[in-house]
């Protein structure tokens, strides 16, 4: 079934009885060519691109809960390509290009909105660091504009330019940065994968990974054993537990990141704004809620919920930067579990076990990576070779010292 405005109208005229399921509910088969563990954004996009780019059809996605129930459905929806280290730059640039064609690709409106992202800076030193970043972005072929204070004021007149604790010196504008409707990304990929024959199997928890003579042969699940010669692990938030089924210990510590949304308001914030000194970022959803967040709670956690100190810190940052949001009321807070790595960058790599691949460690930057992560993981699983834009996301880079530390905070997992 192809979605379109015309289809919406014809269905509407006939009582909307004709809409068919967005995806099937298949029973698991005994064997697949490839199994994807994890039905989140990355798992679904990997399955989609395995089918689309590599002609594979006999694929299953195994999801222990419901599709898109992980971090793809609990983030602040920011999409950007503003990394500066070689290795990250080309990957996120590739991802943004995929985002820009995603609606047409998936025939699903993920509401990718390139409203512009502004990273504020508050000292000469930070300006220089952002200039370096902006230059990296332009060198990569993406867009970046260094704004001075007046340039920021023109775009964001409601910031507190007079009294805020860390004066606004300027900002780095990334015009192609923006947001997307997070759930729709998962659903769009799920529907697209299903239409290409991928079996999306929900309520199916993997309980073991079968390995014979150093080669993966399948998985054990709550719905029985399933054989496969290729298995991909894409279970951010639970990467350690699933990898442990294959005897692996990962360079990951799990942390909770909280996010917040206010009641619906008429349009008031038209960009994505990031305030580094307060570790605060905000945008307004199309429904009108202010969607914002801050740093992780900083202690290892699998609780999907956080505590007040970070809640208050985030709100205080909002109040010093843009006190006009004071009367907006927070409607809901939630938490997601982040795979925090020792350099803040992800892993897309083979493992020591033949046929077993892993895509994890997205810290809290996984949402915008969904298209390229799937693209590159599918490439890796299909060809056995790292994709050119993901070749530095190696599992052993901590052992060898080939790090990708954008924040420069070092090997402490929670500082990225």
């Amino acid at each position: 079934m192809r979605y379109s405005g015309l289809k919406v109208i014809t269905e509407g005229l006939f009582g909307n009885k004709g809409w068919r399921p967005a995806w099937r509910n298949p029973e698991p088969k005994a064997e697949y060519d490839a199994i994807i563990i994890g039905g989140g954004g990355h798992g679904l996009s990997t399955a989609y691109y395995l089918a689309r780019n590599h002609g594979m059809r006999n694929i299953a996605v195994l999801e222990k809960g419901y599709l898109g129930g992980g971090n793809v459905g609990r983030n602040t929806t920011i999409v950007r390509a503003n990394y500066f280290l070689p290795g990250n730059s080309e990957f996120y640039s590739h991802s943004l290009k995929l985002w820009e064609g995603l609606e047409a690709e998936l025939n699903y409106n993920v509401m990718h909105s390139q409203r512009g992202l502004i990273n504020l800076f508050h000292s000469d030193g930070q300006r220089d660091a952002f200039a370096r970043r902006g230059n990296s972005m332009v060198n990569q072929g993406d867009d970046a504009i260094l704004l001075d204070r007046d340039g920021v004021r023109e775009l964001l007149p409601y910031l507190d330019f007079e009294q805020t604790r860390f004066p606004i010196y300027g900002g780095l504008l990334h015009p192609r940065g923006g947001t997307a409707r997070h759930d729709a990304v998962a659903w769009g990929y799920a529907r697209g994968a299903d239409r290409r024959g991928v079996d999306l199997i929900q309520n199916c928890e993997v309980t073991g990974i079968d390995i014979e003579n150093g080669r993966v042969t399948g998985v054990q699940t709550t719905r029985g054993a399933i054989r496969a010669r290729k298995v991909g692990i894409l279970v951010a938030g639970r990467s350690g537990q699933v990898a442990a089924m294959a005897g692996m210990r990962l360079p990951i510590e799990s942390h909770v990141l909280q996010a917040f949304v206010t009641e619906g308001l008429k349009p008031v914030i038209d960009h994505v704004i990031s305030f580094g000194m307060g570790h605060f970022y905000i945008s307004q959803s199309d429904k009108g809620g202010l969607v914002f967040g801050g740093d992780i709670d900083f202690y290892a956690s699998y609780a999907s919920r956080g505590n007040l100190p970070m809640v208050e810190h985030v709100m205080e940052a909002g109040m010093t930067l843009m006190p006009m949001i004071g009367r907006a009321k927070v409607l809901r807070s939630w938490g997601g579990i982040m795979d925090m790595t020792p350099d803040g960058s992800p892993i897309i790599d083979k493992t020591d076990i033949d046929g077993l691949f892993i895509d994890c460690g997205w810290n809290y930057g996984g949402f915008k990576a969904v298209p390229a992560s799937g693209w590159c993981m599918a490439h890796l699983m299909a060809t056995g070779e790292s994709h050119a834009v993901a070749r530095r996301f190696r599992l052993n880079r901590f052992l060898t010292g080939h790090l990708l530390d954008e924040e420069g905070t070092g090997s402490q997992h929670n500082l990225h």
Partner: protein
Amino acid sequence: MRIPCPLCGPRDRREFYYYGADDYLRRPEEGAPPEAWDAYLHLRDNPAGVTRDLWHHEMGCSAWLVVTRNTVTHEVISVRLASEKEAAK
């Protein structure tokens, strides 16, 4: 979240700085192979359940603490000083 500091009593989480798993207590000897340093600095059991990790009472008595707690429920089970001889075990 509240952490009972052995020196100060129960205090709000905001007084403490979190470092990471208690693996950091077991620093390899000089000359240990790179894999040992990789395990020390990077690789983690990262349990969903009871764990032991390191906290610094930075806005209090400055003690480094080994906290036994549950990463799923956030229950704090016990706390001891990192400087105690038994802490690293």
